[in-house]
């Protein structure tokens, strides 16, 4: 495998962006390209992630391409997935030896619709979607099963929320942040029992951009190169009654393939939009109980659907590049109840 490094990263998050996708994506692309030290036209491959259903019309990515720039014509691809999976495709492209550099972008504008209802369209279209189980209710089923199986309490979940919101204070891109008292959080009413508002993600609009390069170029462009040491993704069956919802076998498998357990990690950025999912992922990835998770505040405090997985990887990259840790796990998820999971291991030089 070729050594691939993350060269630059940029993101923007804001609740209810008034601009359209192209307008809010463009400045983030410019920022990431400027930080990379490369010219846009020197970056050899482009890959993006987005969803038509968030935009409410087909071909969300077609107009975005106009904003990103594709002239002269570029080598380009798109996944209808989180940007983390676009990163995977770009990483594969570099592994083929055809290119040495790539730009990855993703964006999501969820504010115009009711996101929890929109994503009900990911469920079984013949038997389940017609019941319109919103995403928070589906997550609530998983949370209930997990608490019963693990012996964890609603207080444990509230503590995760309080910790995440506290950590998010240092993250300019986080939306929900501050000092919150666990007792007060627990006094709030349920949203979907056993989940309260603080257990559920704060959804935002935004865009995320990353530039990666093969070893030689990454060294040339980085003060402290940050390498993608392993990256893998796996999927579980979709039906809510088929798999054990209190576990994430696909995350466990992806973590082992990505080499998470081969050495100690300093922190983890997990795409856990619901508090209980952090605990499920900690188990699946075999992370130590005292390992620092989501120093950025994570997807709980700021989630741009289809970008938040790539955000976790970018947040981990920035922390390592700044010298706050040497080895980290970053994770992205997609589908209901952690159905599909991508895990990557980042390491600073």
């Amino acid at each position, binding site marked *: *495998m070729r050594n691939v490094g993350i060269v630059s990263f940029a993101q923007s998050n804001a609740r209810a962006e008034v601009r*359209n996708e192209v307008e809010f994506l463009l400045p983030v692309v410019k920022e990431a390209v400027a930080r990379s030290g490369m010219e846009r036209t020197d970056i050899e491959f*482009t890959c993006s992630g987005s*969803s*038509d*259903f968030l935009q409410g*019309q*087909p*071909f969300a*990515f*077609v*107009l975005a*391409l*106009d904003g990103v*720039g*594709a*002239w*002269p*014509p*570029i*080598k*380009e*691809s*798109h*996944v*209808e*997935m989180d940007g983390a*999976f676009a990163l*995977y*495709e770009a990483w*594969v*492209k570099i*592994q*083929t*030896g055809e290119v040495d550099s790539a730009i990855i972008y993703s964006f999501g504008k969820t504010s115009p619709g009711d996101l929890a209802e*929109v*994503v009900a*369209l*990911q*469920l079984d*279209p*013949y038997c389940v*979607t017609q019941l319109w189980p919103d995403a928070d209710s589906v997550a609530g089923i998983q949370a209930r099963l997990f608490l019963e199986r693990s012996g964890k309490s609603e207080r444990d979940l509230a503590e995760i929320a309080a910790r995440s919101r506290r950590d998010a204070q240092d993250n300019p891109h986080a939306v929900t942040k501050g000092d919150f008292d666990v007792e007060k959080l627990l006094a709030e009413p349920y949203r979907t029992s056993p989940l309260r508002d603080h257990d559920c993600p704060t959804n935002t609009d935004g865009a995320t951009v990353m530039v990666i390069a093969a070893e030689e170029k990454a060294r040339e462009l980085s003060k402290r190169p940050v390498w993608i040491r392993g990256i*893998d*993704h*796996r*999927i*579980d*069956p*979709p*039906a809510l009654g*088929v798999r054990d919802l209190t576990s994430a*076998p*696909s995350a466990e*498998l992806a973590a082992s393939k990505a080499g998470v357990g081969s050495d100690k990690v300093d922190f983890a950025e997990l795409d856990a939009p619901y508090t209980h999912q952090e605990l499920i992922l900690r188990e699946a990835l075999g992370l130590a109980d005292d390992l620092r998770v989501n120093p950025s505040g994570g997807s709980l405090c700021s989630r741009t659907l289809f970008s938040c997985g790539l955000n976790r990887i970018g947040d981990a990259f920035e922390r390592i590049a700044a010298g706050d840790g040497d080895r980290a796990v970053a994770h992205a998820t*997609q*589908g*209901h109840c952690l*159905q*599909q999971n991508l895990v990557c291991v980042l390491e600073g030089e």
Partner: protein
Amino acid sequence: MANLCGVVGIGQTKYDAKRIDVSMPGLLREAALRALEDAQLTFADVDAVVIGKAPDMFEGVMLPENYLADAIGATGKPLLRVHTAGSVGGSTANVAMSLIHAGIHDRVLTISWEKQSESNAMWGLTLSPPFSVAVVAGAGGYFAPLIHAYIERSGAPEDTGIRTALKDRKNALLNPYAHLKIPDIDFEQIANSPMLWDPIRYLESCPSSDGACAMVLAKEDLAEQAPHAPAWVHATAMRSEPNQFPGRDAVNPQAGRDAARDLYKQAGIQNPRQEIDCAEIYVPFSWFEAMWMENLGFAEESQGWKMVYEGATALDGDLPVNMSGGVLSSNAIGASGMIRYAEAAMQVRGQAGEHQVDGARKTLGHAYGGGSQYFSMCIFGADKP
């Protein structure tokens, strides 16, 4: 290209307007199981699945691959979902091939599909971009002005499209999977069919189909052991260009020309017209055959229509095009690009039955999408590259 990739299994569904005999999972399994059977493999032999389709709104299911994961044998495996507009069937295969070329996996299953009867693709293809007038006319409304521009530039006779449609509709009669089969088809029938989007007549247009196409890809040593001769991947290329800017030539797009040039260079092809034995290209409206002949470098600019006129692209011509009946005869949108690849691969494997081109050793698969702005291409060979 460090690692060689061979196509060892190909499976297609019967294409039809409404496949109400199967669910979405059933449709994909039909293609996947046929491809696995061709390769004499099972889902357990597959390391990863790459799936593609056009907009989710065509069925009204968001990220349907998540719902389909276990039905297509992806449980516990990497599953990637590609979406590059109409070119998606081609680019999905290209992404799957890159997993083999990169040495990441040994065997990859790739599937492209569309079940248009679940929803309404005409609505799904009608964009309403902010601050612009919506062209409430589907794909034909978008492409008709480009065809007019081509006719004006090239001076092509006005029956070029009819002749192309007649050829493809006759070829479809030889293809057991084709959706539209009109046994007594003739020139007059096409010429007299209703004008939908001038100059595109009803019988010069693609149908709306349900269907899926699957391929099993394998690395070199496993491809050599396959029960049927593999189709070796000689080159792949993808290019994209913006939808709108004043310098763009949407009739003969730079992205398509660049992709073709890159493809031939990788495959060591000097003269594509002589060296490629036959081609399956994405022609959703009849006139695009002539247009893409030029874009792909088979004909000089403004000369593509002559290939249609001279019969060069007929099944017995010097460069048969769309031997399967093409997109004009079966259009499960997300699958249409992969069907082109599959048919091109079948030709070098000698699997194409009644529409087999004798002695096909090197073939081209092609797909395009968006406003003629996304291109995916592949060269297959009977021999290793």
